[in-house]
């Protein structure tokens, strides 16, 4: 008999968790912390690429090692050398390109918020500094809306919702 009572009551003990802080991260942007309260992601996180053009010797090793065929060496106006261009519609964020780079010029940052409506056009030319780059689509973590950076001018238009396809 007591067993039946126990089995009926036991699950309701979960109710005491109502007063605890939830795991969910909310909007507007709450930082994501680990169990000790340190911010995430850390340095090791494999996110958007950056490439130091001073160092890069356009050897093409990064393109050779890429398992997803995401890197293409492209010719840029005003530059003698070709530079790696990453297609984020293909990239699987394995980080092999970073490991293969002989001059240590290609790196992956811990920034991972990005968005595009067409995965086939979602190409990105890594430059030394992510901020200065003409980056078309990124997500604003506060509003989960798309930030549109005008090419070169670096003007940020905020609050434009993610367009449906």
């Amino acid at each position, binding site marked *: 008999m007591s067993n039946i009572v126990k089995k009926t009551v036991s699950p309701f003990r979960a109710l005491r968790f109502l007063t605890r802080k939830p795991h969910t991260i909310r909007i507007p942007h709450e930082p994501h912390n680990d169990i000790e309260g340190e911010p995430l992601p850390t340095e090791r996180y494999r996110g958007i690429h950056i490439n130091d053009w001073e160092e890069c010797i356009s050897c*093409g090793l990064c*393109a*050779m090692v*890429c398992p997803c*065929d*995401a*890197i*293409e*060496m492209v010719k840029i106006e005003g530059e003698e050398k070709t530079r790696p261009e990453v*297609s984020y519609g*293909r990239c699987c964020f394995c980080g092999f390109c970073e490991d293969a780079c002989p001059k240590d010029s290609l790196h992956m940052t811990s920034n991972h918020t990005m968005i595009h409506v067409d995965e086939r056009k979602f190409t990105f030319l890594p430059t030394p500094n992510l901020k200065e780059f003409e980056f078309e689509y990124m997500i604003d973590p506060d509003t989960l809306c798309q930030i549109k950076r005008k090419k070169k001018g670096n003007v940020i238009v905020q609050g434009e919702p993610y367009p449906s396809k």
Partner: protein
Amino acid sequence: MVEDSYDHTKRKDQRTGTYKPKNIPVDDVMNEVIRTFSDAERIERKGKSAEVVVGKFTVSETLAIFKKRGYDHFVALTCIDLIEEDQFEMVYHLFSYGAKVHVYLKTRIDREGPSIDSVIEVFRPAITYEREIKEMFGVDFPGNPRLTQFILEDWEGPPPMLKDFDSIQYVQDHFGIKVRNPKTLPPKWKKAGDA
């Protein structure tokens, strides 16, 4: 905290029987196989594994011997397309929970009109493996009742796991995907006779 065992009302259809692993050294079983079938050949391997190559028609009987001697865990059935030799290699993986030895049982079949008898009478799990190989390599398994469509829905091309099926060409033709870096393309396989 490991709780006490509980009773559950047994259903009528409950299967009864406890499995007891047998520990029979692999050398004994191998010798028996080689004595029984003149075309069986043992190949040396390192580690806790053994390999035997048998003829196409003695696979079921050899598997039955292994099963009787405790090699009763049917791990997998692999088909390998040896295009340059114009053959398929079938690898039956067996394992003994008692002796803890992995056995590779290999046999070759022709690549033209490939067919090998089903082994589901001996090892039931083979039913799904054979079904997959029928679809991916086109090998026929007489005796298997369930060689129906498995994974590939509405597929009309040749069996896709064959080495001469060019999947990159297929993807380019059907989905318009461009190869960004042609230097990374893998080698192409051709039949022995083709130039």
